[in-house]
């Protein structure tokens, strides 16, 4: 026993002593002169509520970087090429959705020479927002809910609409299909979690009322419910709600909608109600998991096209990349598409910046000013609802919201609606 104890203590001490060296060394390295390496990637949350999303994003970024390195092409449908003497490399760390870790990871990767960055979730984006802004580090993220990133303009770039804009589009869509004389009754049914609550802003209420809705109230469900949210759903029924606006992640939305169907609530069921979800409950994950009967009528805004929609060039590209690099281990999560868009934005920013500045002199500010803010109409092959454009002051890349509905187990695109820019001040 004592031997084990001493061995263990000795190893602890060695580990502690070695750690600063371990940590300090890689940061000092610089890229060798003739061939340049630029980094893409950033923080990932492989642990926590966004784990499955982050894993898919990571896979996409890695595939895309490999594609650009091998072909020097930006995408099959684009003619621009990536400079020959520059190699891309993915740098990432698991921040466990912990903001303190996210901060030290950011500093580490920045020290390694990252010129672009990604944040893994709303909370980490918020925590890093000030740092990113201070360093003028451009940072696209798939999961930025925050209107606060927009005013005053910061350097976090969203690649899909902010949740309040998603829900506004759903409200617009619903109103277009509304046939009754009375004003439709709307309520929020959202996750009891900061991004879930981020949709509960006065601006949202005001917009809904201004276009003719009658606002009923709010119900919260746990982020990952441990029992079906019967209470909340019954409350909707009791208050005769026609449209429920929700922000939920998949593990929250599936049991919720399943319970709603059991209670006879749905577009085609006894009690007519439509569930409109903002992006994280991506329909392409939701519909196959739930099946035709349970998913019927659910509307999602700001989602990505399904992975079997091969007519869309972006989706075909996703499939090709996976076929090429890991055919036996296909990622079927729709966030693969989001990851691909993120990677495209990061790499495009680097490419654009290199047109203005020699690669060896690039700094994050240059990449932001000459890269990210010069991106106009970046064609994502139909992955995002519209081509992406960023500029100083416009960090919400899309200008329209795609709305899809699950009908008979299929995802049917309902069209796109303009952004309403409903942000909390």
């Amino acid at each position, binding site marked *: 026993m004592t031997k084990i104890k001493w061995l263990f203590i000795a190893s602890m001490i060695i580990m502690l002593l070695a750690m600063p060296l371990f940590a300090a060394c890689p940061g000092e390295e610089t890229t060798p002169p003739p061939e340049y390496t630029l980094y893409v990637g950033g923080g990932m949350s492989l642990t926590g509520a966004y784990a499955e999303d982050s894993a898919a994003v990571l896979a996409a970024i890695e595939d895309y970087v490999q594609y650009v390195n091998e072909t020097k092409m930006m995408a099959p449908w684009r003619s621009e090429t990536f400079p020959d003497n520059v190699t891309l490399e993915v740098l990432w760390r698991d921040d466990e959705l912990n903001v303190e870790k996210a901060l030290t990871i950011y500093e580490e990767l920045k020290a390694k020479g990252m010129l672009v960055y990604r944040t893994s979730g709303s909370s980490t984006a918020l925590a890093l927002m000030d740092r990113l802004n201070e360093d003028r580090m451009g940072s696209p993220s798939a999961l930025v809910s925050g209107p606060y990133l927009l005013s005053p303009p910061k350097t976090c770039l969203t690649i899909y609409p902010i949740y309040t804009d998603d829900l506004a589009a759903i409200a617009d869509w619903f109103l277009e299909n509304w046939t009754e004389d009375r004003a439709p009754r709307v309520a929020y049914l959202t996750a009891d979690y900061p991004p879930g609550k981020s949709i509960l802003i006065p601006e949202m209420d005001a917009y809904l009322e201004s276009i003719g809705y009658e606002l009923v109230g709010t119900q*919260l469900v746990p982020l990952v419910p441990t029992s079906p949210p*019967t209470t909340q759903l019954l409350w909707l029924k009791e208050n005769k709600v026609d449209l429920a606006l929700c922000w939920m992640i998949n593990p929250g939305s599936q049991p919720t909608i399943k319970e709603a169907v059991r209670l006879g609530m749905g577009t085609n069921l006894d009690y007519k109600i439509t569930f409109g979800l903002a992006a994280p409950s991506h329909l392409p994950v939701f519909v196959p998991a739930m099946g035709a009967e349970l998913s019927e009528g659910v509307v999602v805004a700001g989602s990505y096209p399904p992975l079997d929609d091969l007519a869309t060039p972006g989706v075909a590209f996703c499939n090709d990349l996976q076929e090429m690099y890991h055919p036996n281990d296909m990622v079927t999560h729709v966030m693969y598409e989001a990851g691909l868009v993120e990677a495209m934005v990061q790499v495009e920013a680097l490419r654009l910046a290199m047109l203005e500045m020699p690669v060896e002199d690039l700094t994050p500010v240059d990449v932001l000013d000459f890269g990210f803010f010069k991106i106009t109409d970046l064609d994502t092959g139909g992955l995002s609802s519209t081509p992406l454009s960023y500029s100083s002051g416009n960090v919400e890349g899309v200008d329209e919201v795609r709305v899809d509905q699950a009908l008979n187990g299929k995802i049917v695109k309902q069209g796109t609606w303009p952004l309403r820019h409903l942000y909390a001040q």
Partner: protein
Amino acid sequence: MSFFLQLVVSGFALGMVYALIAIGFVIILKCSKAFNIAQGHFVMIGGYLGFTFLVTFHLPVWASLILAVAAAIILGLLIERFTLRPLVGQPVLAVIMMTIALATVLEGLATLVWGGEYKTYHGVLPTITLKIGELSIPPETLIGVMVSIAVVTILMLFFRYTRSGLAMMATAEDEQVVQSAGIKVTTVYALSWVIACVVGVIGGIILGGVSGVMIPLANVGLKAFAVVLLGGVNSIGGAIVAGIMVGVLENIAAGYLDPLLPSGGGLASVFPFIVMIIVLIFRPHGLFGLVEIERI
């Protein structure tokens, strides 16, 4: 009125889940004086085991259940032998910290084995929807009630009629007496962990069938502690009664008070904790717990 009744019924379903978790907790506490913070994690593991056997291996429900219980037994034995046994005689904090550390390791192992993805097995478990007038009773209530009754009955029989069960009850009363009677206390400890693990895993399979499985599912354990406290930490019957009480009250509170609160309420997620504080202030030994007399 039907709104109220529905709240009660779905609260009942929720309470059954709480009660199942609480029972596992109480058994360990009763027999080995350890507070097991990781009880919620047994539930999560149970959910994943259910997914593995039912979906990945396409096994029938009965076979999955047997295999999951077998896995739970092994897990319980391993945990007791390698983490709790070295701590016999250590202060309360050490044991609690051990179970917390255990919880994080279990979480890590689950991530390693099953990944961070959300796993569902909708429709694999039999679903029976009972409708009485306007009232619709959720299938998980029925399954929960049936399983809980079955588990409690088996435990009662076990404690009353088997040698090991009697030994466990005796250990709860007085360790030294048991030791002098020639019963190995370590066996009793191991057994209590095994039972807690099995109960947790069964709860997890039910819960997984209803809500799907994900790592944060383990947090249900934290809420179940309110039930444990309300029922009295050493009363199995108390855990069941308190489970139902907390479940129903939580639902009613959320149903009627939430709309009155700013920012959407969300009382359901905090309600058990409010119950916890109230119980601790006014009745620390719970409804059915025993009061200990301190002496010097």
